[in-house]
């Protein structure tokens, strides 16, 4: 509210996408993207979940139960930390939204507690999930344990090798981890396998999708469950900044859930929204229109329409598509998508660790890497304020980092 009056005072035109990031309605379309491109067998399940979510989301009791769990269990609100030394070094004012401090070490818990509560409310016994870096799998295993549900997590064989710690965490939490040996043996194949399993177990299983992807209502529902990041950050910025809103809001993007939640809090402000993709998995930058995993969006694919494998140092960003709402925000110009390479990411991780004492996840370090590059090149003007969502902590990446040093 303060922001609206500020915008008017400054004579700033609020972008046309002011009404962006709302309810996409029954079709689940964001412009021409999104939709429900799944086999007929899954359509009733999608309808059932959409109806259950609409009902729960407008039920004060559900909201209150979710808010309580996010506070007393997941540790929300997460702090907004000024990055003092790095800000000084870059000549900007940088704030970090500390999702790395949420329970299980990343923003994934926000979405998973919401969906697990929904599954429980729907009477489902088992959560199915796909995972790349393992953070969503760990969060799902955690929420399942919390609510007394079973959890089955599909994970590419290659990711299992490079994220051993998270596999152990899931096992300790009582989840079954199913190795996926098809295709590129990474996140996209884990999604395929989770979908296949879902088709055959839809009566008692709930597919807990980890990002703003999949058939409607998932991209919308996951963004709503992640909106808490942006809303908290908005309020925290209002308290910290003289003008209430940062000049830049930055988040990393694989499927794009932490970015969607973050952007949702700032889409109606003057802040520039920047999503940062891994160079080897940059669907918003190098993708073409396609249909994958139940939704229409931008997809990395060859000229014949075969989906290509994404490659980056961060398993959580190795996804060849991007959430449909991001594609829509990109087309409308409300958000911009940038890429950084693995080398910049590793340097950014080290830089943040050594200037701020924060070991960020390789995924989150993509956002940091872009801010460092843009501040140094002058693209971010000196004196600008930047709000960066640090989506997760880097403990899981220690082994990979050791190899890269």
């Amino acid at each position, binding site marked *: 509210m303060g922001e609206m009056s500020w915008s008017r005072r400054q004579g700033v035109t609020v972008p046309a996408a002011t009404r962006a990031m709302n309810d996409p309605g029954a*079709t689940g379309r964001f412009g021409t993207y999104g939709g429900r491109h799944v*086999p*007929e067998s899954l359509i009733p399940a999608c309808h059932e979940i959409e109806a259950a979510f609409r009902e729960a989301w407008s039920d004060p009791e559900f909201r209150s139960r979710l808010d309580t769990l996010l506070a007393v269990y997941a540790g929300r609100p997460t702090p907004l930390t000024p990055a003092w030394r790095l800000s000084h070094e870059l000549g900007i004012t940088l704030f970090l939204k500390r999702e790395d401090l949420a329970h299980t070490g990343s923003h994934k818990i926000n979405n998973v507690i919401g969906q697990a509560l929904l599954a429980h409310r729907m009477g489902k016994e088992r959560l199915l999930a796909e995972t790349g870096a393992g953070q969503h799998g760990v969060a799902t295993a955690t929420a399942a344990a919390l609510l007394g549900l079973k959890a089955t997590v599909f994970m590419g064989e290659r990711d299992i090798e490079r994220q051993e710690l998270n596999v152990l965490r899931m096992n300790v939490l009582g989840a079954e981890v199913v190795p996926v040996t098809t295709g590129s043996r990474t996140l996209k194949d884990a999604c395929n396998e989770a979908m296949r399993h879902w088709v*055959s177990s839809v009566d008692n299983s709930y597919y807990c999708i980890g990002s703003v992807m999949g058939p409607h209502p998932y991209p919308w529902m996951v963004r709503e469950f992640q909106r808490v990041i942006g809303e908290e950050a908005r309020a925290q910025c209002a308290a910290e900044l003289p003008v209430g809103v940062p000049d830049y809001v930055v988040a990393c993007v694989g499927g794009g859930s932490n970015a969607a939640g973050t952007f949702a809090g700032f889409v109606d402000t003057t802040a520039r929204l920047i999503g940062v993709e891994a160079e080897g998995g940059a669907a918003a930058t190098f993708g073409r229109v396609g*249909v994958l995993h139940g939704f229409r969006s931008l997809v990395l694919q060859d000229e014949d*329409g*075969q989906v290509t494998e994404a490659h980056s140092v961060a398993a959580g960003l190795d996804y060849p598509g991007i959430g449909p709402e991001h594609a829509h925000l990109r087309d409308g110009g409300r958000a911009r998508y940038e890429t950084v390479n693995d080398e910049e990411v590793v340097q950014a991780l080290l830089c943040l660790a050594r200037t701020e004492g924060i070991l960020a996840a390789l995924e989150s370090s993509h956002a940091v890497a872009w801010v460092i590059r843009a501040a140094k090149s002058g693209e971010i003007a000196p004196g600008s304020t930047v709000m960066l969502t640090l989506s997760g902590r880097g403990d899981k990446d220690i082994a990979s980092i050791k190899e890269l040093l």
Partner: protein
Amino acid sequence: MTESLEEFLIARRDTGRLLLVPYVTAGVTPGWTDIVHAYADAGADAVELGFPFSDPMLDGVTIQEASDRAIAAGTTVKGILEEVATLDVDVPLIAMTYSNLVVQQSTAEFCAALTASGLRGLIVPDSPLEEVGELADAAAAEGLDLVLLAAPSSSRARLREITERSRGFVYALTRMGTTGERGEIPEQAVRLGRELKGLTDRPVLFGFGVSNPAQAAELAGHADGVVVASALMRKLLDGARPRELGDYVASIRRALDHGAR
């Protein structure tokens, strides 16, 4: 042959014959078109050609393996269509693929390319009623029959709409799950077949999980026929030659004819 896929199948069904549609993944072997000929010679009423996609959401391990093999061999839509154009078979050919291949150019261009190569039908499993509008229009404009799927989980209202909008035949899924051979015939398949037959005069064919001639005949008896895919592709991946695949299709043909009404 100028009639549509649907006219062709209805004419055959109306002679009292149970319909048989065997499947092959295009490009799975260098001589895959020989398999199409073998199927036709063995008494197929149409042949389904899988256009391989990297992420086949509704396919089990067998079709995935066949698709991966075809893609690894450099199979492309353009290449498949060039080979299809040279085929000389007297039964209709039906393309089966996923939405991502359909939307590469416009859906109109995709449908036009299929008919130009002589294909008469199209199945896109990840294009349900909600999303099928543009594709259905494009296919209709080209005279290409777009076959829709019906599932055990579909509501009666959806089944009615599916039977109204499907062309060629209605593809009834025997079970909730992916493609692949299974043992018994589920009760839900029998129910779905009965319900669909009550709603439409279009041919109703069962697919998913058909694994042997006796089972194919029993299942077909609950509708108008069957699609057989994984059982054939499993044999092919295990080294069966086109003639052996043809022999297997002939054995299913005999079982169907034996059980025909």
